[in-house]
Structures are given as structure tokens and as C-alpha cells.
């Protein structure tokens, strides 16, 4: 069967092409090709381009929570040394663009929507001058007269049903709860989170005639050019973004934000390149937060521990008018059985900075709560929590009836348990004490929806027998350079040293961008299809069928004949653009990556400090494209799980909605000492419904449920069940047993 090469992905591609190729590089744990640049400090990030004559802009933040700008006292600031401009343009943005929006967010900084919103940009010759001048700028406001809510639990907060998230309703949950042999009905809380990518948001903007060029740190360039263009009311084709290296994103760079638009406007106004780098505090205060959540979970089982009823209701928040509502129940829809169900999300309208995607929106906080609740259910039923999960995996998605494309959850639970030594866990809490520390173990499932999105890539097989892969796809640390090269190398029969990958430039074909764990499979599929088209042409040269053409190390063979690619190409390059569009497979199958986490923690018997001692994750996400970088993605997710479980929390002042802990000293992302040895098991899987690569997303899977395993381990260690993340010691302390009475 021949699939159309640039078509919607309507039918699972069962040919499993990558396994039939002969080069043997796909899946191998190869080093990242850009590694030597990154470890030597020679990879160039956005703020580091040597653009002649650029000047420095620093954003000015509002000192009120809501209102309008009355007067900007420009003159004293314009008189300061080196100051070139004070800009407060109607086109400057009040909020960050949501992922894949492709259009401008709320603009005009003369209105203040939340505390510390940018209201102006000060530009000066040097950074030091601009920073001083920005802090010196005095702005007068008319404070808002309308009462506004700063707290999602405030009775003043308007609560809405998000437009794009219909509740899932099946059967009668209340009745199932009444009739259940065992049930739990619990309320959990998770706090706001910050992406806190290590590279602060940065843009250098300059104009060449009426074309705008941005060296900017963004995740999804094809969308970002449209967003900038819409902000500036100009055609997207006149905007170019160059971002070969992005210092982390985790959702915060999905859409463009304040600094990009401000830099573009300033560069136009001054007719000079302008660089705007947000301070770390500004990134925290203005870019994007993960919403805090309040979640009610109801679980009802029959006498055998089979779930008959499942409720998961979440209360989240965002600014008025924002479409995004943390999709907390996303994985709950398909993970466990129980036809009687109610899943819904409601959003409170409050004045804090924009809520949007932070690594694994939905599952990151939804799964950690669901998996903690599952542990409570296992206790109620009195069975092993691994067994409870295995007992409740439905054959088809409840209510919808959609089949699963592929699901390695049982394998993950079993292999993870074996490697971790789950059999040594004592089911009752407070059984193991080492010195002043209680020791315990916990488990959680991992699940994250899989998404395939629109993507294009160009592959050129050059006359010299090397290949060039090009796309505006970004590599935000995920390993895209490595895996796209491996896909092309495998398909074209070239050693990886003969494949060059060029990314992060919108003058190249539009890739999927980095977000939602879809970058690798979407842009990777486009690369694969471009290679298929090249193989068709090579097959013609070789007078063979493309399916039977074998290429390895630059030598093509068919039917006993062997010719080098250089010979076949005969001095001419072959360039093909491959593309993929999401199609029916997305609707016909429930697609997700799965896994399991096993954690061992120590809880201090006196102080309640929690430390993770070891952790194992087993994951099935379709084909592994590069075992080294995929493992690193899983490790990174688990580290986020540790942060989410134990330390990360955006602390807002509910009187004015300002973020109190807006720096890396007080917003506690994990440090080396918080992270023990982590084990990752990659399961062999092929999922043809997910993508022609038979791969699924992995970038976010490692966080989805991880914190639940840690919370469950805390319960097992010391008997304390904390229903509010993170499990800081103040929440553990009041419930600990007497440390002296219980001393070993």
C-alpha cells in the first residue's frame, strides 16, 4: 500500500518502515550533535547574537493590580544618561500568547490587568542605564473602581465553564457512590507553578526595510511569527524568527510575550536593533503561570475493587477572557474504568498573571491528584496499589467507547515494580525507621495524551551523498537535532555524521514547534515522509521499488545490484518537503503515552522534612527515537515531579494578587541535592495510530503522576496523608507520630 505523502494521517501506517531500514541508527542512544557547542559555551542563544548597534530595553512593571495608566512621567527619565526612549504603545501586550494561538493576545498596556503587568519599555544605550531608568520611571494610575478577585476561592470570583472543555458525564455517579462496596470522596489542592526555564525570555529585534527579524527565545516559531505579525498589524510573511537554541521553555515560550513585541516596536521607533531581556523576576511575575487547582475526586468500587464510579472535578483560574483552563481531567477520561462518571473543570476569573501551559498542562497536576486518590482507594479496598491499577484498566475508553491505540501500562507497572523492588514494601505505614527517618514506598501510573500536529520539513539529499534536514522546528533541549538526524539517517541509509540538521529559522519549512510533546513525532513524521519521497526518486534511478530498496552507509542495493548514492545522484541534489497533518487516527483511537513511577522517600520523624531516596520510572511511548535523549526527557519529568511533590509553589498575596516569591531563591525548583539516583526503563512499543514513526510523545510523560508516587510514599513512610501539594514540612509536621515513642 502506498500512502499519500502529504496528507492527513487518517489510517495507521502499519508498514513500520523504520524497522525495515538498514542503517540501524534509529533508537540508538547517540550523543546530541549540538552537544559540543553547548558544553563549550558556543551555542548561541537569543540574547547573544552579535547584532551591530543594538540598544537595550528594560520593561517597566505596574505597581497596582488593576486600573488604567493616567500619566507616564517620561521627561525626567528621558533626561537620564543614555536613555533613548520611553515607550508605552497600544500594540504592546498585556498578556502572554497561549500556545498555538497564532494571533495577538490582549494588547494595549495603558490598561492594567494584573499586578506587575508590563506598562512601558525604557530603552537606553547600555543595560545598566536602561535598568536604572526603568526603575526610575514614575507612572500614575487611575485605580479600578470595580471590585476584583485576587483569590480563586474568593466569593467575588466569577466562575465559568470553559468553552472548549465539555464535562464528561456517564451513568449516575451519586448512585454508584451510594452502592459502592468501597469509596473515597476527597479534596486535593495543587498550587500554581512556574516554568522557570533557565534562559529568561529574550528578543533582539531589528528591521530590514519593512521586514522584521527577531532573534527570540520561543518554542513554536511558525505560530510565533503570526502572533508578532498580528500584534503589529503586518503580514506574517514579513516576519522572520531565528532561534536555533532555546534555553528551555516548558510552555512559557509557546507563545510570544511582552519582550518580543516591545523590542519590535522599539526597534521600529528608534530605527535601531533593540534587545529586551526580561529579568528573572519579570519572567516570574508576568509571563505565564500554571493555575492552582482544587480537585474533588470520588472513586467507588465493587467488592472486588473494580471501579464503578469515578468523579474528578477541578476548580482552576485564569484572567477574564482567557480561553485556557488547566485541563486537569484530561487523562482521567481514558485512564481507568467506571462507567458512572463526572469529569469537569470550572474556571474562576481572577486578577493574577495569565494562566497557561506549563510542562504537561492538565496531567501534571491532574494525574498527581488522581494517583494519590487511587492510593487512598487501594487502602480503602485493602489491596496492593499496583494491583488496584491493573484491575481497573478498561478495554475501551469509558463513555466514548474509543479503542486504545496501544497501552503499555501493565508492562510499566510490572517491570517497574520488579526493578524497584516493590515486593519489599510493607503495606501498613510507619513500619520502617532508619535513625530519625521514616522510610516508605509509593507507586503511581503515568499517562499523557498523545498529539500529532501539522508539520513540514525539507530533506535534501546532496549530490555528495550527505543529507540536510531543515525545519523551523525548535530544539528546546528535547533532543530534536539528534532524533531528526536519526530519522533521516535511517531512512536514507546514511551514518549520522553525514546528516546535518538545521532548525529554528522561519525561513525554513514550518515544523510543529516544541510543545505538548508533539514536536518529535510531528516534525519527525514530516522528515520521514520527505525521506520517503527521496527514496521514491532514488528507486527510480535504481530501477527498483522504493519498499525494496536497501540503503546503508550511502550504498543502495536492490536485486543484487549495488550503487553508491553519489553515483545515483549523478551530481544533482534531491530536495523534498514532507508534511503531516493530524487526521482520523486522532479521533479513531485513544492515544496516550503511559508509564509507572515508584518512589522511596524518607520523612524526618521530628521535622517532617521529606527527601526522595530513589525513584524508578517505566515508560511506554511508542518507538524510542533516541534512547539517550528519551531517557533524559523522562529523567527531567521525574525531577519536575519531585519539585511538584515537595517544594514548588507560587505564593500569591491574596490582597492584590502579586506574586511574593518571584525569584529562584524563594520559588524552590529542585537542586542537585533534592534529586537522588533515578532509574528509567524504556519499554519497547510501536504505535502506528500515533504517527508513521510509530512513536508517541515523551517530553512531558515523566512528570504526569510522579508527584503522586512521592505523596503515596510519604503516606506509607509515616502515615501522613497530605492532600495539599507541595508536601512541605509544615503540612506533614502536625500529623506525625511522636518521634520518641516511635523510635526504633
Amino acid at each position: 500500500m502506498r500512502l499519500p505523502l502529504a496528507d492527513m494521517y487518517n489510517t495507521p501506517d502499519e508498514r513500520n518502515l523504520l524497522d525495515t531500514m538498514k542503517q540501524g541508527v534509529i533508537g540508538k542512544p547517540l550523543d546530541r550533535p549540538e552537544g559540543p557547542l553547548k558544553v563549550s559555551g558556543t551555542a548561541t542563544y537569543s540574547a547573544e547574537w552579535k547584532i551591530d548597534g543594538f540598544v537595550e530595553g528594560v520593561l517597566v512593571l505596574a505597581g497596582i493590580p488593576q486600573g488604567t495608566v493616567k500619566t507616564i512621567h517620561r521627561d525626567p527619565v528621558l533626561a537620564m544618561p543614555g536613555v533613548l526612549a520611553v515607550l508605552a504603545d497600544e500594540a504592546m501586550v498585556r498578556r502572554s500568547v497561549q500556545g498555538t494561538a497564532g494571533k495577538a493576545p490582549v494588547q494595549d498596556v495603558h490598561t492594567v490587568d494584573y499586578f506587575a503587568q508590563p506598562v512601558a519599555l525604557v530603552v537606553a544605550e547600555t543595560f545598566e542605564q536602561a535598568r536604572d531608568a526603568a526603575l526610575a520611571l514614575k507612572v500614575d494610575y487611575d485605580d479600578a473602581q470595580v471590585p476584583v478577585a485576587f483569590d480563586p476561592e474568593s466569593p467575588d470570583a466569577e466562575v465559568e465553564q470553559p468553552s472548549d472543555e465539555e464535562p464528561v458525564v456517564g451513568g449516575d455517579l451519586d448512585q454508584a457512590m451510594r452502592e459502592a462496596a468501597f469509596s473515597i470522596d476527597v479534596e486535593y489542592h495543587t498550587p500554581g507553578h512556574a516554568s522557570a526555564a533557565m534562559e529568561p525570555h529574550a528578543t533582539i529585534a531589528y528591521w530590514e526595510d519593512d521586514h522584521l527579524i527577531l532573534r527570540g527565545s520561543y518554542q513554536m516559531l511558525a505560530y510565533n511569527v503570526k502572533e508578532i505579525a498580528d500584534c503589529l498589524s503586518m503580514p506574517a510573511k514579513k516576519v522572520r524568527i531565528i532561534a536555533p537554541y532555546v534555553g528551555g521553555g516548558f510552555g512559557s515560550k509557546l507563545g510570544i510575550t511582552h519582550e518580543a513585541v516591545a523590542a519590535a516596536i522599539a526597534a521600529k521607533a528608534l530605527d535601531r536593533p533593540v534587545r529586551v531581556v526580561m529579568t528573572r523576576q519579570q519572567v516570574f511575575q508576568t509571563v505565564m503561570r500554571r493555575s492552582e487547582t482544587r480537585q474533588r475526586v470520588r472513586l467507588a468500587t465493587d467488592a472486588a475493587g473494580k471501579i464503578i464510579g469515578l468523579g474528578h472535578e477541578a476548580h482552576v483560574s485564569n484572567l477574564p477572557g482567557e480561553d485556557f483552563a488547566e485541563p486537569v481531567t484530561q487523562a482521567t477520561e481514558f485512564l481507568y474504568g467506571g462507567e458512572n462518571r463526572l469529569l469537569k473543570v470550572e474556571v474562576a476569573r481572577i486578577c493574577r498573571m495569565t494562566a497557561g501551559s506549563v510542562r504537561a498542562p492538565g496531567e501534571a497536576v491532574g494525574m498527581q491528584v488522581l494517583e494519590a486518590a487511587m492510593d487512598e482507594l487501594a487502602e480503602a479496598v485493602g489491596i496492593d496499589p499496583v494491583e488496584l491499577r491493573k484491575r481497573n484498566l478498561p478495554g475501551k475508553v469509558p463513555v466514548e467507547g474509543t479503542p486504545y491505540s496501544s497501552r503499555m501500562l501493565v508492562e510499566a507497572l510490572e517491570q517497574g515494580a520488579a526493578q524497584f523492588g516493590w515486593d519489599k514494601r510493607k503495606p501498613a505505614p510507619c513500619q520502617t525507621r532508619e535513625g530519625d527517618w521514616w522510610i516508605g514506598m509509593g507507586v503511581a501510573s503515568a499517562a499523557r495524551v498523545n498529539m500529532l500536529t501539522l508539520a513540514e520539513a525539507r530533506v535534501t539529499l546532496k549530490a555528495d551523498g550527505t543529507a540536510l534536514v531543515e525545519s523551523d522546528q525548535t530544539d528546546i533541549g528535547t533532543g530534536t537535532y539528534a532524533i531528526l538526524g536519526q530519522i533521516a539517517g535511517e531512512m536514507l541509509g546514511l551514518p549520522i555524521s553525514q546528516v546535518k540538521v538545521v532548525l529554528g529559522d522561519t525561513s525554513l519549512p514550518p515544523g510543529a514547534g516544541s510543545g505538548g510533546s508533539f514536536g518529535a513525532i510531528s516534525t519527525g513524521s514530516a522528515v520521514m515522509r520527505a525521506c520517503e519521497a527521496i527514496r521514491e526518486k532514488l528507486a527510480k534511478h535504481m530501477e527498483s521499488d522504493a519498499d525494496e530498496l536497501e540503503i546503508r552507509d550511502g550504498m543502495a542495493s536492490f536485486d543484487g545490484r549495488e550503487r553508491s548514492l553519489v553515483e545515483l545522484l549523478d551530481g544533482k541534489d534531491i530536495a523534498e518537503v514532507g508534511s503531516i497533518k493530524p487526521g482520523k487516527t486522532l479521533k479513531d483511537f485513544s492515544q496516550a503515552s503511559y508509564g509507572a513511577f515508584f518512589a522511596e522517600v524518607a520523612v524526618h520523624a521530628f521535622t517532617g522534612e521529606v527527601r526522595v531516596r530513589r525513584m524508578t520510572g517505566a515508560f511506554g511511548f511508542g518507538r524510542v527515537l533516541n534512547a539517550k535523549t528519551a531517557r533524559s526527557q523522562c529523567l527531567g519529568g521525574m525531577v519536575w515531579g519531585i519539585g511538584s511533590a515537595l517544594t514548588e509553589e507560587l505564593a500569591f498575596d491574596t490582597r492584590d494578587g502579586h506574586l511574593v516569591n518571584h525569584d529562584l531563591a524563594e520559588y524552590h525548583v529542585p537542586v542537585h541535592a533534592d534529586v537522588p539516583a533515578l532509574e528509567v526503563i524504556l519499554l519497547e512499543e510501536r504505535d502506528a495510530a500515533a504517527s508513521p514513526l510509530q512513536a508517541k510523545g515523551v517530553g512531558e510523560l515523566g512528570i504526569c503522576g510522579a508527584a503522586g508516587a512521592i505523596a503515596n510514599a510519604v503516606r506509607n513512610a509515616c502515615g501522613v496523608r497530605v492532600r495539599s501539594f507541595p508536601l512541605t514540612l509544615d503540612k506533614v509536621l502536625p500529623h506525625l507520630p511522636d518521634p520518641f515513642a516511635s523510635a526504633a
Partner: protein
Amino acid sequence: MVSSTAMAVVNGVANPLPADPRRTLLEWLREDLGLTGTKKGCDHGQCGACTVLVEGRRINSCLSLAQLHDGDEIETIEAIGTPDKLAPLQRAFVTHDGFQCGYCTPGQICSAKALMQELADGWASAQTEDLTARPSPTPEELRERMSGNICRCGAYSNIIAALEEVIAADADHQGTVA
């Protein structure tokens, strides 16, 4: 005032210090000397991305005024090794995938290099049981000693693996491999 002869030696080359006393060592390295391998992650000593070696010791260059470095020898990531000639520590970071986005990486590597010297000098850490004994490079010791370098991608266990490999090789060969 900075004297007109105030200089610091950066990666073996003497350079005049900047005129504006507000300029930090970090800004001077990145903006005036073009040594952008040293990163600005927080600008407040809270992340470690700006770590460089001054007189062989690691510091946060973001919190140090450049003019206070008159006469100092400064080493940045660019002098540790180049893409064509990586130092063993850098090579080990690549092999063990001790980074993802790469932004904290130069700071991690500078920090790791200084850490090895601190171990050689017998410095203790908060993890060291016996303050007066020679510290041994256990994973717990290495994690504590690297904790001034945040990696949001979460490459921590790979970084420690890279470091362990280089320290083991160093012990075998009795040479300076970092």
C-alpha cells in the same frame, strides 16, 4: 574611580576593566568581551548559570562588580575546551547527556571543575561527616557540592554520572583532566 590601568586576565588575555562601576563581571564578560558562554539565568546569585573561576575558585559572576577584579585571573567555559577539543569534563557531559537545553551547562561545568579542586584541597561540605578528614566523592557529596547550579531541564543525575566518571579517571591517572 577605576584606574586606567585596571586589568583582569581573562582566559590568559589581559583586558581593561569597564568604565561603568555598575557593570558586573558577568555583563563585562558577555557584553564587552563577547564571552557569552557564561550565562545570565537570574542575575541574583540564585541559579549558578553565570559561574566562572576567579583565581581558580568558582563564583557567581552576576553578583560581582567587574571593577573589583583588578589583577584577577578569570577562567570561563571558553577556556576549558572548544568544540573541536573538548576537555574530559565536557566530553563526559556529552556522553552522559548531562544537559538538555544547554543554558545552565557552562555554569555546571565551571562549577564541576572548581569542585574537583576543592575536593583535592580537602574542603568539606554540608554532607561531610568528619570535617577534618579527606572528603570522598560520594554521590551525596557531589550533589551537595553541585547544588549551587540549577538545571530546570532536570539533567541532574546525568551530570553527577559525568562528574563521577571524570573524578574516577582523575584518581586513576593522578592528573588534572578537568
